[in-house]
C-alpha cells in the first residue's frame, strides 16, 4: 500500500509540476490571473461601487456574495452534521444527574480562572471590532466570528463545559446559528422583494431615503458580515462542545 501510495503521489506531483513552464512567474503582475479584467475591476471599481476600501471584503460580501452565503451555509452544515453524527440524547434515569465532581472552581486553577475572566471580555470586544471593521482593515464576519467563538471555547476550556453551556445552552446556540444565515439571506431577499436580483444591495437605499446606493451596499455588507459572525461563532462553539464531550454535552474534556 505504501508503495502504491508513493507511486500515485509521485505521479500526481509530476503531473502538477509538468505545467510549470506554462505558469506565470512569482509575483508577475501581468499574469493572466492578475491582469484579467475581473481582478482589475475589483481593484479599480470597488471604491466607486460601494465605497469599501477593503477589496477582499467587497468581493466576498458583494460581488461574490452568493458564494459567501453558501460558505456560511457550509459552516452551518458542519455544525448540524456534527450534532447529527455525535449528539447522544441525554439519559435521564432518575431525573437529576449526579453532580459532577468538577463543578465550577472545584478543580480549576485560580490563575486560569482569573486570566480568563480578564481575557474573555477583551477577546469578545476585539471580535466585534474585527467584524465591524472588516470594511477598512483585514477582518470581517468569518474572522471575527471565529474569535468570538474562540472566546466561548476558552471559557469552556477554563471553567468546564457545563458552566459554559449554562451561559450558552444548546438550543440557543443552534438557534443563533440559524439566525445568522437568516440574516444573510434576508438581505438578499429584501433586494429580491424590491425588484432587483438577489443580493443586489444597491436597491436597498430605497428603504432609507437618506442613503445612496453605494452606502446601501456598504451597510448591507456589514449586515451580512454580522450574520456570518453569528453563524460562525455559534458553530465553532457547537463543534467544540460536541467533539469535547463525545456528543453528550456534559463534563467536557
Amino acid at each position, binding site marked *: 500500500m505504501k508503495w502504491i501510495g508513493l507511486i500515485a503521489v509521485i505521479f500526481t506531483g509530476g503531473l502538477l509540476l509538468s505545467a510549470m513552464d506554462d505558469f506565470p512567474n512569482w509575483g508577475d503582475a501581468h499574469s493572466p490571473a492578475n491582469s484579467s479584467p475581473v481582478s482589475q475591476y475589483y481593484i479599480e471599481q470597488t471604491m466607486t461601487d460601494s465605497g469599501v476600501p477593503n477589496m477582499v471584503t467587497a468581493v466576498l460580501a458583494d460581488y461574490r456574495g452568493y458564494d459567501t452565503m453558501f460558505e456560511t*451555509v457550509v459552516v452551518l452544515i458542519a455544525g448540524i452534521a456534527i450534532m447529527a453524527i455525535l449528539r447522544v440524547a441525554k439519559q435521564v434515569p432518575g431525573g437529576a444527574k449526579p453532580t459532577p465532581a468538577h463543578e465550577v472552581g472545584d478543580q480549576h486553577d485560580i490563575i486560569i480562572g482569573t486570566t480568563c475572566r480578564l481575557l474573555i471580555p477583551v477577546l469578545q470586544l476585539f471580535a466585534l471590532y474585527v467584524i465591524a471593521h472588516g470594511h477598512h482593515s483585514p477582518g470581517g464576519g468569518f474572522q471575527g466570528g471565529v474569535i468570538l467563538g474562540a472566546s466561548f471555547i476558552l471559557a469552556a476550556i477554563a471553567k468546564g463545559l457545563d458552566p459554559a453551556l449554562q451561559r450558552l445552552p444548546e438550543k440557543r446556540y443552534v438557534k443563533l446559528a440559524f439566525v445568522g444565515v437568516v440574516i444573510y439571506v434576508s438581505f438578499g431577499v429584501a433586494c429580491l422583494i424590491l425588484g432587483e436580483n438577489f443580493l443586489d444591495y444597491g436597491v436597498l437605499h430605497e428603504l432609507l431615503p437618506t442613503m445612496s446606493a453605494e452606502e446601501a451596499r456598504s451597510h448591507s455588507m456589514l449586515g451580512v458580515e454580522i450574520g456570518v459572525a453569528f453563524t460562525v461563532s455559534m458553530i465553532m462553539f457547537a463543534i467544540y462542545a460536541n467533539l469535547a464531550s463525545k456528543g453528550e454535552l456534559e463534563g467536557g474534556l
Partner: protein
Amino acid sequence: MAEQYPILVLLVLLFGALLVGLSGMADRRVCFPLTVTALGLAVAVSIGILQRVMDGGVIRYFVGGWSRPVGIGIELRIDTINALVLLTVTTVGLLTAIFSFRRVRDDKTEKTPLFYVLYLLLIMGLSGMVITGDAFNLYVLLEVSSLTSYALIAMGKSKRAATAAFSYIIMGTIGASFYLLGVGYLYLRTGTLNMMEIHQAILALDGPSSTIVVAFVLIIVGLMIKMAFFPLFGWLPNAYSYCPSSTSCVVAPLMTKVGVYVMVRMMLTVFGTEWVFSNLQYTQWLVGMAVVAILAGSVMALAQVELKKMFCYLIVAEVGYMVGGAWMANHWGMVGTIYHIMGDAFMTLCMFLAAGIFLKQAGVVRIDQLDGMFRKMPWTMAGFVVGALAMIGIPPTCGFFSKLYLIRGGMESGHWFYVGALLISSLVNAVLFFRIFEIAYFGKNPAEGHAAHHEEPSVQPVIKEAHPSSLIPLYLTAAIILLLGLFNGQIVELIEHSLNGVQVIGTEILVEKGGQG
C-alpha cells in the same frame, strides 16, 4: 417574478432548511410538512424554469446584478440541459422526502430536524451545482452537497456506517480538492472563474497550454472520484448501503448523476468540445475505461448477496455507461449520456425505494430473503418490476431508450467494444433481476411437483404491505420511468436544442475521427 426563478429554487430550499431548523426544535412534527412543501415548491419552480428555457432560450441570471464585465459576479446559467437535470434533482428530492414520512414517527433520537435540515441543504447544494455558471461557485456547492451527504451517511445506525462515511470523506475530499486545484490552474491561465469566460479564454489561447491540460486532467479525475468511476469507486458500495434508507434513496440516485452532469458541463461549456476532442487518441482511453467499468460493475454486481450492495455496483456500471457515452465524441453518445442522467436517477431511485421498503417491512438485507415477495408484497413488487425492467432496458421504459442512443453513438463512432459491453451489461442486468424475480416468485425452495399447491394457499401472508407514504413515491417513480421513455423524443429534442446551441459536436466530423481512432 419569473426572471427570479433560478435563485428561487435555491432560496425555497434554503428557507425550508432554516425553518425546519428553527421550528423543528420546538416540535418535530412540523419537519415533514415543511420539507415536503419546500421541495414541492422547488419542483414547481423547476418546472417554471424548464418552461422558460423552452420558450426563451438560455437564462442568464447575475446574482447581485453584477453583469458587466462578465465574471465579476456569479452567474447562474440555465439551458435546457440544466433545466432538465434540475427538475430531476428536485423531483427525486421530493419523492424521497415523501418516502421518509415514517422516519418521523419511528425516530427516537430526536434528530429528525437535523436530518431534514441536512436533507434540504443536500438538495439545495445539488440544485445549485446544476444551475451555476461559475466554476468556483460549483466547488462551494459541491462541498455543501458533500458535507451533507457525509453527515447523512454517518447517521446510519449500522456500526459500519461510520467507517464507510470516513472513507467517503477521505475520497470525497481528495476529489473535491483535485477539482479545486484544477479550477486554480484554469484561473491561473485564464484569469476568470465564469464558465463561459473560461471557454472564451481557452479559445483565445494561442497554441497548446500545458496548464489547461493539467487543469482538465485534475478536474476530470476529481469528478471521477466523486462519481465513482471505475478504479475510483471503492468508497461507494459501503457508503450507500450502510446508510439509512431515506438517505440512500436520495444520495444514490443523485450524487453520482450530478457528478456526471458536472463532467458533461465541463466538457461542453468550460473546455468546449473542440478542445476536449482535439486529441481523440487520448479520450479514447476513457471510453476504454468505461468499457472496463461497465463490465467490472456488472460482474461485481453478480457476485453480491446483499440487495443494496448489488444496486451499488450497478451504479458503478451505469456511471460507466455515461462516461463512455460522453467521451465517445459523438452527438448521440452525448445525448444518450444526458438522457441517461435523468433516466438513471429515477431508475436508481426506484431500486433503492424498493430496497428501503423491503428492509423496513420485512428486514430484507440479502437477496435470498426476498422469497415469496410477489405474494407477500405484491404492490411493492409491481413498482420494483418497472424499475427492474428499466434497468434491463425493456421498452418502453427510459432504460431502453438511453441504451438506444448510447449504442447508436457507439456504432456511429465505431466504439464496438462499448456497444458490446452495453449489451453484455443489459444481459447481466436481466440475469440479476430475473434471479430476484425468481426468488420472489418461486420462493427459496420450490416444491418438487406442482400437485402440492393446487389449492389457494391456506397460510396467509405474514408481512403487511408497505405504508402508502412509501408506495406513492415508488409508483410515481415508476410512472416517471415510463413517461420518460414514452416522451423521450421530446426530451431528446430539448437536449439537442442546447447541444446545437453550443455548436459543439458535429456528428459527421467526429465519425471520421472516430473511424480513424
